[in-house]
């Protein structure tokens, strides 16, 4: 009978077996990784659809808890993780050390799963560190100049964030004597502690903001995402920043701390700044992955806005956008990786007219572009719509207008990308270009299909996944 501990034991055992698999055969490593990813994917679907029990799990001394919010994130983590693992089996042909890569990647997934399954602040910190340390190494994995530099930058900023979070945790413990979520919530419900909120709240926002690359704490992201190998960029942008950063913010500020107008205001302001600046800076990039990185900052802004507004519709939109952004952003990153794999460059001005040479990449990119720009019936449309509607209903007309405007702007610059890279005249350099290898294509096709299906079946997704998550937060 599968249970929550499998989210830990499966990646851990697979990682431990990696060195042995490597001795057997190169492809054994691939098979093991994909198998582990697939099991994790099924487990996460199990938490949503039934088959894996939610609620508390306390066997063996472990203290795990899955609620609606965790289930949503488990789905995000393990589904994207699976796609990236499949993709990596071909992408890694350029790099050595497959077993170590997969080992690190699986531990990254373990850490992320851990973050959403614990119900204690310190364990949250610990599993976040597990994921972060695996991530630093994965960013540096190519052992090239760019990767090493970006990994160091990521590490340094992240460490400052961690310090702030730990200090805040100490203050909470000092004042409340416990670090367990529901216990904290109950203590706080008994009496307001404005100073504690203000101080720890600020530290948590800054600390987790650094992890989530919300502006103005985003400095590491535009370097880390391009320099990392494509499957790492995909999972970083699509999953890690959301789990380590946004999930923690949601859990703390919407689930544990009482909601105050100040916090909501802070979320909205940070969100608007990220949304606007991220989009504008993205527009000026030539490096495709850098552009995608800034676009991630922008989309996280949308999510923060939705969370800050507080209206149930907006929160549902934000949660839905977390799910959707994970899908289309990782799709776009994986495709950019395919482009880099074949052409050897990330500079979009050097590409052009590739649609005939790389039809799968081109078509799936179109899917991704339409999704991120919010064109129906793709998933992005619905999540952005809900956020904007929520803003209007709550009276934030200016924010709603800005969100709509930047949506159109996003559509604009993504279409420019499509045109530059895929349409137009074929740059003579690329006339013998091949499509991306099989595994990479399979992964992106799966993601593209899910973007479309999540959009078309948004109603089911809402009731199965989003509403239970929002209910945890006291939403509709």
């Amino acid at each position, binding site marked *: 009978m599968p249970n929550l501990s499998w989210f830990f034991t499966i990646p851990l055992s697979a990682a431990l077996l990696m060195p042995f698999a490597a001795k057997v055969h190169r492809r054994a490593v691939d098979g093991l990784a994909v198998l582990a990813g697939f099991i994790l994917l099924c487990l996460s679907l199990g938490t949503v659809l039934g088959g894996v029990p939610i609620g508390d799990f306390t066997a063996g001394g472990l203290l795990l808890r899955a609620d609606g919010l965790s289930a949503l994130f488990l789905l995000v983590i393990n589904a994207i993780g699976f796609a990236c693992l499949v993709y990596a089996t071909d992408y890694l042909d350029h790099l050595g050390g497959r077993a170590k890569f997969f080992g690190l990647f699986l531990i990254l997934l373990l850490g992320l799963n851990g973050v959403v399954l614990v119900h204690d602040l310190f364990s949250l910190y610990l599993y976040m560190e597990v994921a972060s340390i695996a991530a630093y190494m994965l960013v*540096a994995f*190519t052992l090239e100049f760019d990767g090493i530099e970006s990994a160091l930058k990521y590490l340094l900023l992240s460490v400052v964030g961690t310090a702030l979070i730990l200090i805040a945790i100490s203050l909470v413990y000092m004042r409340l004597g416990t670090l367990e979520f529901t216990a904290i919530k109950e203590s706080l419900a008994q009496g307001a502690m404005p100073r504690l909120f203000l101080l720890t709240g600020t530290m948590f926002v800054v600390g987790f903001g650094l992890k989530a690359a919300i502006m103005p704490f985003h400095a590491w992201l535009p370097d880390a995402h391009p320099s990392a190998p494509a499957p790492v960029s995909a999972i970083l942008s699509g999953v890690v920043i959301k789990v380590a950063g946004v999930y923690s913010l949601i859990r703390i500020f919407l689930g544990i701390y009482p909601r105050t107008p100040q916090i909501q205001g802070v979320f909205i302001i940070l969100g608007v700044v990220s949304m606007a600046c991220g989009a504008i800076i993205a527009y000026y990039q030539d490096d495709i992955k850098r552009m995608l990185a800034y676009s991630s900052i922008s989309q996280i802004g949308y999510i923060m806005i939705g969370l800050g507004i507080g209206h149930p519709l907006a929160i549902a939109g934000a949660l839905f956008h977390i799910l959707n952004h994970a899908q289309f952003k990782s799709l776009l990153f994986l495709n950019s990786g395919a482009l880099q*794999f074949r052409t050897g460059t990330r500079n979009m001005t050097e590409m052009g007219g590739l649609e005939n040479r790389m039809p799968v990449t081109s078509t799936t990119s179109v899917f991704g572009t339409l999704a991120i720009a919010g064109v129906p019936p793709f998933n992005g449309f619905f999540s952005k719509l809900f956020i904007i509607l929520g803003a209007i209903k709550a009276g934030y007309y200016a924010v709603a207008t800005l969100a709509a405007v930047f949506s159109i702007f996003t559509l604009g610059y993504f279409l420019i990308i499509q045109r530059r890279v895929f349409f137009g005249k074929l740059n003579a350099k690329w006339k013998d270009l091949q499509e991306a290898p099989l595994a990479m294509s399979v992964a992106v096709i799966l993601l593209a299909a899910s973007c479309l299906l999540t959009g078309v079946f948004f109603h089911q997704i809402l009731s199965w996944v989003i509403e239970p998550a929002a209910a945890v937060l006291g939403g509709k």
Partner: protein
Amino acid sequence: MGTILLLLLVFLLVLAMGLARDLLKAAIALALASVFLATILFLHGAWVAAVFELSVCSGLITVLFVSTISLTKDSDQKEEAKLTGYLLPAFLLFFIGVDCLALRWLGPFFLDAKAMVPADTLTGGFSKVFWGDRTTDVLGQAALILSGVFAILSLFKRKAQHHSLEGGKHE
């Protein structure tokens, strides 16, 4: 009272680290600071933490730093940014100011420190809490150690099979 003195010592060593011209001296200052911190931990009943602090921080980490320093000795490191060293006292005053303000603001919290929970904590208490209450953390640490192993291996022991992804220079 002893604690305050020790804390001062730790802090002075930290300052020494910032001002030391020689990296090796800075690393030794770190090790000494860890020793004093371990003493503080010991004095307050955190035996196991004290042992870890000693063996890991003043031991292992210092060894790592010293190895790194000697492995990178031939770097063309120009003279260190002296400006940062000179500015440190000024910033220090600023930090102390911020610190005092912060603690005064938090003041009410410090008034009623609870009495220490007595004795059995000093012996079997650690094991029970570590392995029993916080088993989830133990699992996390196991994963962490594994990830560290993979990281070090992938940094230093890679088969020669990697060539640059970018065919030539990009951008």
